[in-house]
């Protein structure tokens, strides 16, 4: 196993609130690891610090031997870390194809021209948006916007993908397709850190889980074990269910 990502003593404060407090974990190449925890526990903030959207107040992020801490987001993307956003963020004046093209043009291997157009078409097909490239993103349904955002993240050709509740809001059949898509990505050798609330997805996809509460990691290990631990159930569901 090769080490892909190492997060050490990560810390983030917002005013008086410690949103992320001394978080440590590492990802091996090709793993899908779940990052769980109730709302406000600091999951998105962790992703934001890995992807460079936020500066950490303390700690380090090392990706394939390269220090990412304090690097700018575009550098981190070019190193091979891509992300989606908890609330979809399409680029509204661009077409669906152009949204994806942006990542091919400026991502890890910088494609342009005919070649890039072909790659965009392939990615759209992969996420189930074949032939929709010329549409305005505003015309897409919420689900299709999520597909588009996945295609855009993949178009920077990452080896680490950060998915922030990407499966949220899907109906059961869409969820099944979504889970299969993520499994395909793993098959293609992409390491995935998956922030997710849907337990069905977590069980199907994640070999390991990390559980956060109030900015701290309260449990981590193989999914089956972690999801049965008492404090995890407590953090999620409150006292009644423990």
């Amino acid at each position, binding site marked *: 196993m090769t080490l892909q990502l190492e997060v050490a003593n990560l810390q983030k404060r917002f005013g008086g609130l410690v949103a992320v407090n001394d978080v440590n974990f590492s990802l091996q190449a090709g793993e899908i690891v779940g990052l769980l925890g109730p709302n406000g526990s600091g999951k998105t903030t962790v992703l934001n610090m890995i992807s460079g959207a936020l500066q950490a107040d303390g700690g380090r992020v090392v990706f394939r031997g390269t220090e990412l801490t304090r690097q700018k987001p*575009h550098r981190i*993307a070019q190193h091979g870390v891509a992300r989606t956003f908890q609330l979809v*963020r399409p*680029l509204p004046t661009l077409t669906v194809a*152009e949204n994806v093209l*942006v990542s091919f*043009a*400026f*991502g890890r291997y910088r494609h342009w021209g005919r070649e890039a157009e072909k790659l965009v078409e392939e990615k759209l097909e992969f996420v189930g948006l074949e032939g929709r490239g010329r549409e305005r993103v505003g015309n897409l349904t919420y689900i299709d916007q999520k597909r588009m955002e996945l295609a855009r993240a993949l178009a920077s050709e990452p080896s680490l993908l950060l998915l922030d509740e990407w499966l949220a809001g899907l109906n059961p059949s869409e969820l099944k397709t979504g889970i299969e898509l993520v499994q395909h990505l793993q098959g293609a050798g992409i390491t995935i850190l998956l922030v997710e609330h849907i337990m069905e997805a977590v069980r199907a996809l994640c070999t390991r889980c990390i559980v956060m509460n109030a900015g701290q990691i309260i449990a981590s290990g193989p999914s089956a074990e972690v999801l049965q631990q008492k404090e995890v159930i407590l953090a999620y569901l409150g006292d009644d269910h423990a």
Partner: protein
Amino acid sequence: MPTYASLALVAVAVSTLAAAPFYLSDYGVGLLIGMSGYVTLATAWALFSGPTRYVSLATVAFFGIGAYTVAVFSETLPYPLVLLLAAAIGGTVAAVVGLSTLRLAGVYFVIFTFGLAELVRQTVTWWEVNITGTLGRYIFLPFEGRHIYWQLLALLTVTMLIGWLIGRSRIGLALKAIGDDEAVAAHAGIDVTRTKLVLFVLSATIITLVGAIQAPRWTYIEPSIVFNPTVSFLTLIMALLGGPMRLWGPMVGAVPLFLLFEWLSANFPNHFSIFLGLLFILIVFVMPNGVLAKLEGIRKGAAQ
């Protein structure tokens, strides 16, 4: 795709425009100078402000820098060198300003650029009064109106060409992405700061050159003439009217507005700014995306 037909069309249009002074009176040539000047200003302004939506009111700062560079150096340096120097000074000021302000969001950027124009004007005034001991300067260059016009026409052609190339290039896509969502653009791998800076400097350099080329037209200049904030507002409103997101938009807005303003300032010199204000409001309310977008919308609506 550039077909040979459209290339030929452009060539014919440019040569027709270039031949125009031979058939026009001095007054007509004067109009052409003003018009091509504003079309170039609006097009250059929109190169940066259109896609990024950073509304700059610094236009006249660079315009004035260009004019003043010519006024100061035209007697000691050969003219082409003066133009190069003007471009270099304008570009450098833009780089310094851009590095410190392109992080400002929205309205702060607008206010800053407006302040910058005033700051440059006050600095030049102070320098002229206290250091050189003059306020105005004379420019003696052996140019006739048509020489100035041809230079502006050349600059405009180059500016349009640059705009066209940007629209087809990676950097054009980057600018549009930045205008939509800077954070998403950055996570896709775009160096947001550098992209904005490059375009801001490019746009400002062209604007500086417009000021430099037009300067000999005045013969006598002083800060209140070449740093007049109306230039910034007119440029902005022209680009907005035509639509700053399209290559031809600023031209479509600048030509009629320039003629309108010429007529207004000749006939109602005291009420000019009232008309300007009303027009501003009208454009923002009726077609915030410009005439071209409006026409496209109407065409689409009719097709459906």
